[in-house]
């Protein structure tokens, strides 16, 4: 086996519940029968399942004050940022799972575009505990999308706290990037792994996979309890839209979050390479514009329906021919607008 990507590993969905724990496979390993790749038109949900930090960063007390944030970039859409976790004094090497705000990304019909996932775990010593506020915000939006926080009066405190956390210097306890899906035809493409159902394990260093298993979505050393476990993060991909919290609106909020990049100085910056500030504004504007345009179509369709039933009913009633003609004209205009929407789109 080549020694490439020895810090990123995969376990298929089929084996996640294995009692003995499942062996790790390279993320580029060729597909076996039990693998379940995500195909076009399929639904999928990506969730953050567990993580563990093994190095001491807080100089004053044992354990670290940790905050976990992720960004998901779907095709050429702007990244969706989520804050998943905050806890003070997390003991070294102690894994955290069942995060309650695990949602990263979901789509009802996968379009074949690549998905990029960026992860950061920060050591944020000396800040207010926002754990409870995160839970409350997750309950409100289905996940903690920082770009949505300024839009709700219920989350202004959390927003202020997060702003101050991100503005102040902090240590990076863990950072990693995973690219999945898209054109997987290039077998030797080491930066993009196939998009399959199962768990992806990202470590902060190369490991010997034979020494570890994934059990209950956490990384475990086979040898003994005392064996070293590196810092890692585990995500899971399943072939459906997972509804947690108030997920009726989760997908709506997710798309809103991507569209609403903030417009003041204290923005939640990504590593610079993703989008420049100007581009992000323009991008965000275009997305909102597209959203308004689409919403407009639905309004038009509803109007068309109403007008049409009114028109049909009017034939039986004593409505003046002039008013009926008026309605007919409006119907024609509406139907042209609706048709243009589809035909225009076809040309693109």
């Amino acid at each position, binding site marked *: 086996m080549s020694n490439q990507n020895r810090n990123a590993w995969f376990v298929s969905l089929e084996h996640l519940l294995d009692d003995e724990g499942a062996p790790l496979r390279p993320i580029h390993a060729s597909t076996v029968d039990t693998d379940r790749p995500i*195909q*076009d*038109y399929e639904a999928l949900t990506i969730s953050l399942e567990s993580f563990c930090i093994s190095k001491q960063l807080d100089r004053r007390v044992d354990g670290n004050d940790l905050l976990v944030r992720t960004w998901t970039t779907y095709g050429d859409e702007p990244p969706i940022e989520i804050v998943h976790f905050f806890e003070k004094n997390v003991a070294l090497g102690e894994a955290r799972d069942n995060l309650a705000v695990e949602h990263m990304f979901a789509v009802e019909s996968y379009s074949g575009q690549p998905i990029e996932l960026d992860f950061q775990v920060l050591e944020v010593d000396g800040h207010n505990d926002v754990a409870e506020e995160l839970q409350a915000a997750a309950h409100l939006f289905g996940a903690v999308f920082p770009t949505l926080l300024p839009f709700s009066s219920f989350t202004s405190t959390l927003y202020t706290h997060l702003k101050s956390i991100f503005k102040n210097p902090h240590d990076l306890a863990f950072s990693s990037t995973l690219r999945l899906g898209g054109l997987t035809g290039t077998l030797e493409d080491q930066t993009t792994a196939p998009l399959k159902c199962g768990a992806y394990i990202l470590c902060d260093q190369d490991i010997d996979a034979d020494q570890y298993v994934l059990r209950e979505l956490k990384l475990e050393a086979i040898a003994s309890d005392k064996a070293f476990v590196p810092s890692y993060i585990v995500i899971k991909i399943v072939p459906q839209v997972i509804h947690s919290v108030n997920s009726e609106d989760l997908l709506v909020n997710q*798309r809103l979050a991507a569209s609403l990049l903030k417009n003041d100085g204290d923005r939640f910056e990504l590593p610079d390479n993703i989008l420049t500030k100007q581009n992000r504004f323009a991008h965000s504007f275009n997305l909102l514009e597209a959203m*308004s345009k689409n919403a407009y179509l639905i309004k038009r*369709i509803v*109007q068309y329906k109403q007008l049409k039933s009114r028109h049909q009913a009017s034939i039986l009633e004593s409505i003046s021919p002039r008013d009926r003609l008026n309605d007919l004209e409006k119907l024609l205009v509406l139907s042209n607008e609706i*048709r243009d929407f589809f035909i225009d789109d076809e040309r693109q």
Partner: protein
Amino acid sequence: MSQQTSKFWFVPRKELMVSKEDTMYVGSSIKRASSNVDHDVDTMVRDGDAFTVLLKSFYVTQDKDKGDNDILVRSWARYGSDPHTEVAHFFKEDIPVPYFSAHDVQAEHIVSADTYLSGNRVWIRLQISEVDGKRVHQISSFVEQNLATAVSALGAIFPNTLPFIGNISTHALDLLSDLKHLISNKSDVILDEALDFLSVNTGETPLRYGAYIFFQRAVDGGNYLLNSFQVHSNSTAESEPIPDYVVIEIIPGVINPSSRTTIALNQSLAKGLLPVDDTQAAQIEKDERLRYLQKLMKQAKMADDLKEYYGLMTRELSGVVLNELQRKRYQALTVKLGDYIDVVKDVLDR
């Protein structure tokens, strides 16, 4: 005949139209905005109508800065239960008094609706203020240089959409935040009046096509005439100085001042974005705005689904055999979109 005094006065559209043809015309008499509807001359905005509200002119007599007023004209409008929009119409420095402006209003659009539903209240607030501060010059020249861009891109200057336009620089954003600061700290209000309109008979100002005059103080309308959106003293009446005012016009149809996109879309954008002033009122409106955006996004997602459905439908009609996943998705969409699909098919069959 003596009428009650009021700040709000009205000239029906029919009168405004006549005035353009008659060479003997000196001006139209004005009637109270809340006067009873006279069906011979008044035309109400009706159910299903499209209409636009425009800012036509304003008049300033108050001297707030030794004859060199720096004037900002803004409006806020709310349609039904939607969040309000804010529009900047005019910002220029060193304006003498008295000053009448009709042709140099930089952006006319206040609000429009493409399908009026009766029972939806239309609320309009107009404000003229004098803004003072050391960066006024920079800000006003920025506004003048960029207004054209903003108007051609958006059809109106919705301040809360400005930061989202790609070609507006960071420097401009700083100036905008300066302006925001000036407005909240160093501005003198010259006129600030709001009026509610309704099409149904509820005792509120009837929503009629025509021109509305917002005076800075209550006047006896019998003393005045309106000609080309300018208020004149009625020569037969005792001459009383004309107070500061703003004239708006409600016209049928939706006017698109922008070449690039439709005003309705940008207006809807402006409703969704957070306002530039982060005042107490803006805080309260946050949740309303969020709900609005969520509703909009829900509809947008549905449109995306419809497009996906249409794509699959076209494929199937052209004889392509769908694979299992595509077929499953197609069926799921058919169930989900039922009513909408009927309309799309109906429209495409025509």
